[in-house]
């Protein structure tokens, strides 16, 4: 059972919210497919700054970074002195950093509190 996405001729298992089950299933092509499901038409340079940071952080700590860190680090990587605003992230990823950005980066579903 279960849902999947199609990347090229590969089928990748995802959960009911569309998050990839296996970390190693992710690829840049998969990210492009996932982006479409999150109302992101095309992954631009700015998107990749966030996605790459999420993947690097997860590789190191096995957990998604706190949003505040994402805002700070994104600002830094864009060469700004200040952190970017939360709204900036929502403009890039309309469903937000947790659902949108993490999904596209292939991170497991963040467990939020209801």
């Amino acid at each position: 059972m279960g849902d999947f996405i199609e990347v090229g001729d590969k089928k990748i298992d995802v959960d009911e919210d569309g998050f990839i089950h296996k970390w190693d299933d992710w690829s840049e092509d998969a990210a492009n497919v996932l982006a479409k499901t999150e109302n992101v038409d095309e992954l631009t340079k700015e998107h990749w700054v966030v996605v790459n940071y999420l993947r690097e952080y997860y590789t190191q700590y096995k957990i998604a970074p706190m949003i505040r860190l994402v805002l700070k680090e994104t600002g830094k990587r864009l060469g700004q002195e200040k952190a970017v605003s939360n709204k900036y992230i929502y403009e890039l990823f309309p469903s937000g950093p947790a659902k949108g950005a993490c999904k596209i980066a292939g991170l497991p579903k963040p467990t939020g509190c209801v």
Partner: protein
Amino acid sequence: MADEKERKTPLLDELEKGRWPSFVTDLKKIAERKPMVKDLLGQLELSYKEKKGHWKHGGLVGVRGYGGGVIGRYSDLPEQFPDVKMFHTTRVNQPSGWFYTTKALRELCDIWDKYGSGLTNVHGSTGDFVFLGSNTDVLESIFTDLSKAGWDLGGSGSDVRTPSCCNGPARCELACYDTLDMTYDLTTTYQDELHRPAFVYKWKFKMAGCPNDCVASIARSDLAVIGTWRDNIRIDQAAVKEYLDNGLDITSDVVLKCPNQCIRLEGNELSIKNEDCVKCMHCLNVMSKALRPGEDKGATILIGGKAPIMEGALLSSVLVPFMKMEKPYTEFKELIESIWEFWDEYGVARERIGECIQRVGLGNFVEAIGLEPIPQMVSQPRDNPYIFYEEYFEEGDEEE
């Protein structure tokens, strides 16, 4: 197909017996036209039978541009109950003090009937107007229809939860500030914090007009704003006499019940030693025609209340004993923002502000947000008799 769905619900049926209204009866009524509710009844019956919940924990769904407001719910038995495979909750930001026109209520129900299960949870402990049960694909339409009608989603997840307040001055003479206005003001000021979760955990504001605290802000919010006054209780001696004439036993019902024994009745004359008053509100509640709060009104700000999830329950304790609460609430907002800054920096994941303060110590916390420590912040005396006085620490001494 319809017959297939006719399920027997003997355990739930028990809840329809007796003289009381039953949610089961309500659900059955709606189930006649909503297949989703039919499966809900089926799943609930099974839960009662197996003594086990069949909702998966959490889930991540939402609407464009917002991170909060919708809570994902999925059944863990989607094959058996396909119509509740998805059963998401949508929170609608309620008006201050829960004042609705019947037109507004109809509007909400119509929107919900069109897209969702039709089931609502109107002002349970969450506070918001809660829509229970919808599929993912209708979420954007719900949001669009709500927005068109002038509504907005509430908070969920690690954000500012929908601020809420008591009826305040709209219906109550004891209100010491405009709780309704302040709630609306905070809601509009902190839109970004409300809709785009960025905190380490949830943050709740509750505004109570007086120390009666009808919204239980002291227990139910991270930051409670409780109306109070700092001058004297106003006494109308003529009204006191009227109470006596009408047979109220002021001595036993009011004077002797004062926790700090600061009320005296001599003849027909009532007097209050205001400096001893602890604002228990008993005398004002019993003799509401004769006694009124003072004229120099404002609010006490308390911090740290929460229900047990990660750690045990906490009641809020005093942070600022008195602050004037007048538009545009600049002093209050500056305080909030400095607290958030601290919490963002030092709070660990899923740590409420009350737990964070317990961990770092109140002394460190007030120093970090720029408040002077004062006796009112002490909720109970320390039980450790060994005290380290920094004043005795001299330069050159080695810290051990």
